[in-house]
């Protein structure tokens, strides 16, 4: 099986919560940052092996309003655009093997030291990461839990997924 690693970093100043995915998507601009410049804030990298790095693709995808799941089986990852969330700016990194998400982490976060946002960082963001993973791994079709304003996370996640063609 062919394996390749694709790392993309995107930049977008989103108005999370005000705009829908398809309207923010047109603002996406891709730039080729090394992943080392955005140290993963959060933990485990279970992404399958990769062999070296390939240059970022030069194509820009717009976020589809609907996506059906079908993709080639290869280990890849992408970092979504930076999005405003309630208490700062974050971006999300997604690793996939084929069309299956293997890891989701916060690639960067700037919460301005707001204590409320640190609470959210500690609890909400890992929850969101895990929800996306659980839904695939536990033979369940959904997750029910107390909600928080997740727009920034989801927006960056969506843009990362769309970069991967998922």
């Amino acid at each position, binding site marked *: 099986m062919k394996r390749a690693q694709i790392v993309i970093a995107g930049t977008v100043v989103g108005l999370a919560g005000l*705009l829908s*995915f398809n309207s923010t998507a047109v603002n996406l601009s891709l730039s080729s940052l090394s992943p080392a410049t955005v140290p993963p804030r959060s933990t485990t990298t279970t992404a399958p092996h990769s062999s070296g790095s390939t240059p970022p693709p030069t194509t820009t995808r717009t976020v589809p309003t609907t996506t059906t*799941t079908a993709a080639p089986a290869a280990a890849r990852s992408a970092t979504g655009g930076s999005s405003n969330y309630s208490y700062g700016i974050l971006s999300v990194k997604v690793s996939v093997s084929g069309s299956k998400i293997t890891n989701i982490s916060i690639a960067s976060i700037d919460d301005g030291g707001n204590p409320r946002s640190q609470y959210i960082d500690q*609890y909400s963001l890992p929850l969101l990461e895990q929800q996306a993973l659980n839904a695939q791994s*536990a033979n*369940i079709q*959904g*997750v029910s839990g107390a909600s928080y304003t*997740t*727009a920034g996370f989801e927006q960056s996640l969506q843009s990362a997924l769309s970069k991967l063609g998922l």
Partner: protein
Amino acid sequence: MDRETRRILHHDELVMGTVVTFDLYDENEPSEDVLSLLQEAIGVLHDADDVFSTYKEESPLSRLRRGEIALEQCPKDVSDVLELCKVARTIADGWFDPWSIPGGVDPTGYVKGWAAQRSLDVLCQGAIHGAIVNAAGDTASFGGPHPGERFRIGIVDPAATQRLACVIESPGAVATSGMYERGDHLIDPRTRRPTSRASSATVTGTDLGLADALATALAVGGVQALSIFSDLDDYEALVIDFEGNFHATTGFPTVSIRSNASK
């Protein structure tokens, strides 16, 4: 030829200050009709947000709360929802009460589930085997992932939100409320102060609006509020207390529980 039922469409919509996801299941690719119903179902959420948002200063609900307009001047949905909230308040023995929120009547605890349920009702018209609308942790669904199966929903463990406390079969509506995500959003109607007596409260039933309200009631009232369900058909509940103990009604549709979740 039999083709396997599978998820044929996933959609994320940023609306109501959060993300609502749609998952559709069938053996065939979504038809034009189904895609058009999806757009209509998404529109239902945005319409509800426009009317009921307390964050949009010019929404009819915001204007009603400020006393700028009377109920009769609001869209009919507002009086409809407030009537439903009164019913929910009665059923919930007062543990759910939009009229006790500081700053004026606030049906937010009902609206998210109500809107998701109405959105799902649109999708029900489509020729598909099943669909789930997940409004940031509250799910409305019909059908299942395969013929004869119900959707399985994982309930987040409030003590360690990166894992699941249990998995249940959805009878159509699953709503969870708790202090672990949104801090001080739970108000005790009897004291009008931020209060929570449960780490997490989940309600299953047939309508997500009522389930959402009852989950809020249960998160505020805790184990004592489980009495709400003793004479309420079709609705079941689970309270996880601050020690991690599970308190469920007898009909709560659990499929599996984490062996160490109770401690």
